[in-house]
């Protein structure tokens, strides 16, 4: 942490003049009244007119600087030595597990001195913060990226896939990827296509409630993810997150069928147009497989990569009154493919037929999904759908729009002709299209 983290303007000037640094015991005097406390960092989003002190009671308060304010350093702060508690010796014969961090904080520590929350992501940290892990596996950690997941690109997906392949091919019996929850669904879909026939389950995991709080879903999600990756009888790419608001069950979702459906709740992730792959009971540690059609776990096996992706694509959500000009300018921008989120069974307004027809003629792939999310697209039922079929729009069954977008990027990375693109997009490769659908209801 920088010596005067977050301070700017007048506050910074006064602190620099007094020689104060974060953690020092200082005295601030204004209009004859003084207050003592430890200097705390300031957020860069807060104004430049206040200095933050931690009082002996533990409370932080903000003091206005301006007018005649005097700051005096009483004692220099001493950064206490961090003594990590000794790591419990791992039991002999434990399986090898890899934990790859890409962002999102699955484990952290609170520095009560400064109030900062520090990520704690290497193996030593994980064992220290979640001692149960020392009974589960011999953990290797990789801090691959430290990104908010909204900033990830196809390059990151490829990097993650390489890290997974490296782990699996060096004998990992479990691989867990810690990821920000915002775009975890997209990554799960991407890895499902990039990683060819992984022999074990690769589990993506995150936390909805920050890991610095005692109530965080991080520990139970992580422990579940590891257990599932190490011992579930199925293989492939999955997301493991809370099934409900309670800590009892962790739901395991197929990577190509999962979506974040709530901004903040623990059970934000839902399987759409698919049953849950499995359910993990946190209190007993048991795994219940719920989908009979998952690929099976294999003892050995290398995982190969098909990582090339073309991101000259776009995902467009249709809405009534959408101006044809806008769709046209998107389609004109050099895209190789577009996924439409149509209404209902996969419809858009008549006004948009012309831009779409022109794009198809130019060789742009136009795939149709539904903004209903639940249910299967069918362009045969209404005239609109038939018109769109005639124009050359390709219906994409019950694929999630986000998954369809990612699949399109992957398909465009290897298909050599429009026909090949169409064929690959409409063929079920890793479970992204379900042939039959049973009752699920809709809505999380």
């Amino acid at each position, binding site marked *: 942490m920088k010596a005067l983290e977050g301070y700017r303007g007048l506050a910074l000037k006064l602190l620099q003049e007094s020689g104060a640094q974060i953690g020092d015991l200082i005295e601030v005097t204004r209009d004859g009244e003084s207050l003592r406390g430890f200097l705390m960092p300031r957020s860069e989003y807060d104004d430049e007119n206040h200095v933050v002190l931690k009082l002996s009671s533990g409370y932080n*308060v903000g003091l206005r600087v301006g007018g005649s304010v005097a700051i005096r350093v009483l004692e220099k702060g001493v950064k206490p030595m961090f003594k990590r508690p000794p790591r419990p010796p791992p039991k002999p014969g434990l399986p090898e597990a890899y934990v790859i961090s890409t962002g999102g904080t699955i484990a952290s520590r609170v520095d009560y001195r400064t109030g900062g929350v520090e990520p704690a992501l290497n193996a030593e940290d994980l064992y220290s913060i979640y001692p149960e892990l020392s009974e589960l596996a011999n953990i290797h950690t990789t801090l691959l990226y430290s990104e908010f997941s909204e900033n990830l690109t196809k390059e990151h997906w490829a990097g993650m896939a390489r890290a997974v392949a490296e782990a699996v091919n060096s004998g990992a019996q479990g691989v867990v990827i810690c990821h920000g929850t915002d775009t975890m669904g997209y990554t799960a879909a991407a890895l499902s296509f990039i990683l060819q026939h992984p022999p074990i389950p690769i589990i993506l995991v995150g936390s909805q409630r920050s890991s610095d709080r005692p109530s965080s879903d991080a520990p139970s999600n992580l422990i579940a993810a590891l257990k599932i990756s190490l011992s579930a009888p199925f293989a492939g790419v999955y997301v493991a997150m809370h099934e409900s608001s309670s800590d009892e069950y962790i739901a395991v979702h197929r990577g190509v069928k999962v979506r974040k459906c709530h901004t903040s709740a623990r059970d934000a992730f839902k399987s759409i147009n698919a049953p849950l792959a499995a359910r993990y009971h946190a209190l007993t540690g048991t795994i219940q497989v719920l989908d009979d059609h998952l690929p099976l776990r294999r003892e050995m096996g290398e995982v190969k990569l098909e990582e090339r992706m073309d991101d000259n694509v776009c995902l467009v959500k249709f809405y009534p009154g959408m101006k044809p000009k806008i769709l046209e300018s998107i389609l004109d921008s050099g895209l190789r493919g577009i996924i439409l989120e149509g209404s209902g069974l996969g419809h858009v307004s008549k006004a948009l037929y012309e831009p779409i027809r022109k794009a198809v003629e130019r060789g742009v792939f136009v795939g149709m999904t539904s903004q209903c999310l639940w249910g299967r697209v069918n362009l045969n039922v209404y005239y609109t759908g038939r018109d769109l079929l005639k124009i050359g729009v390709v219906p994409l069954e019950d694929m999630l729009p986000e998954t369809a977008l990612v699949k399109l990027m992957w398909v465009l990375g290897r298909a050599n002709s429009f026909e090949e693109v169409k064929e690959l997009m409409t063929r079920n490769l890793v479970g992204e299209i379900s042939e039959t659908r049973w009752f699920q209801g809709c809505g999380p």
Partner: protein
Amino acid sequence: MSSYTGLKVGLELHCQLKTAHKLFCQCPAKLSLKDPEKRLLRRLRPTQSELGEVDPAALFEFQRGRLICYEAERESTCLVEADEEPPHALNGEALETALIISLMMEAKPVDEVHVMRKVVIDGSNTTGFQRTAAIALNGKLNIAGKEIPILHVSLEEDAARKTGESGLTVNYRIDRLGIPLVEVATGPVIFSPEEAEKVAYGIGRVLKATGRVQRGLGTLRQDLNVSVKSGALIEIKGVQRLDLISKVVSLEFQRQQALLAIAGELKKRGVKPEELGEPVNVTEVFKDTKCKVIRNALREGGVVLAVKLPGFHGLLGRELIPGVRLGTEMSWRAMFYGGVGGIFHTDELPGYGVSEDETRLLSKVLSLNELDAAVLVADQPLKARDALHAVLERAREALNGVPEETRAAQEDGTTRYMRPRPGSARMYPETDIPPIVIAEEEIQALKAILPEKPEKVTARLMEKYGLNRKLSEQLLDSDYMPLFEEVASKTHVAPSYVATILTETLKALERRGVPVNRLTDEQILEVFQLVDRGVTAKESVEPILEWLATHPTSNPAEAVNSLNLQMVESAELEKQVEQVLRENVNLLKKLGKASTGKLLGLMMRNLRGRVSPQQLLPIIEAKVKDYLKNQE
């Protein structure tokens, strides 16, 4: 005890605010009477600090497998209380109230309010922390002639309320979670139980004078920090009633003195900590016992473990405060750390089904001499062992005097062990809430509209309404001051009568178990208005209020009808008086005019509440006069 040398007390008063919403969401700030419609099962894991430290009591609870079941219903809770949604902005109404309270106590508001997360891991906060913010610092209040420093005024969320416990699961209702609380903390400048109570009442009066705090049992809670010289600083949590404070303080003083005396006695007996050994298996001694507790434990595969406490004979059974012996303190530790139901100790054996022979044999097995004692536990082996280790720890602490603890106040003024005293408050910023700047203009604007100080209110009540000081102060201490003024201004009922009803009468009803907190201000006002309009007599106010409290959805008019308390018409009264005169001719003959009083008393017995004596007396007097005239 009249001398409290060495006693120092600090108070922390917590008061629920009367705001439209909770502190960090739009839910109403009140408890729900409905059944919970949702239950959440959670675990709270202690977080590690930068120093790699974890709170030991918290870790212990977690490792035991403690589960928390949160009960929620839609009326008073939302996703914020369930820790499923980030907090909404800090409630401006609550902040304003906190500032008003601060200014009334001459505490200086901070320039920028920073909401903190204070780690609390017993389950009473769904997140595992309490959101709290310091609003003002370094105030003072003049109470009973002494200047009491107010260290800080802070604004925080109330916690969930415990509704039960079974096995490893503890149940909390989260309707109370998030209700705004103002905390007022004094320095340790109080030196006697009576002073503690006076200070608490003094602070309470200022809070009530704002008119912005909730009323009723449980809305004002006190924590006391009691330290005794050579003893220890004990945190006592949850004193629910102001009038219990002096008792709690004096009993705690007594308890610490008793523990110091025990330490002195142990020293005299030459007991050393090294002499406290390990638990021993004494199941054999009790294989044929008639003691039900031990028999049941053994039948379920348990054992009886015992630990020798050399030099402790007679001290385990020694009473510290009524109902609490050193042995009781040890059993609380055993229950907390071992999860066992209780302990036995030799100061009370033979007893509880344990025979003399068994006691003698136990003594022999443990090699106890006359000055030694022993503690036993019958339970599953691991639990029994943990329990006795906790007992040993408490015995070690007894050698040194008074251990630092957090204790829970009980209804009778005693306290019981709650948990070890936490280290320094673990607080870090609540980053979901940006800091809030308090502008100077805002402070000046509030200063201009500060409510009257309690002393001024008392003076005004006395002058304007002719109340005596005692009644005025009672009114001030009650929750009904604003209502009193409303009734006094809207009706002609005598103010002192209204004041008495709102203070003594309601208190008496509450003591009898009548749920007076269900009565709304509107209902009470309406009752007085009925008296004002002559629908019923003022003597019926008490029974009507009692009826309404137990029929909360009804209104006062229904109460009058249901209880048959309508005023009797004059014509009907005349008839009744004539009847009574006829029935009591002899009395009339004997006493003449002087019989009026007795006749009035007789009739009021039957007509109480339906007629006022002032209404009835002239009628009786007139009829008696007529009768006597006719006799002449």
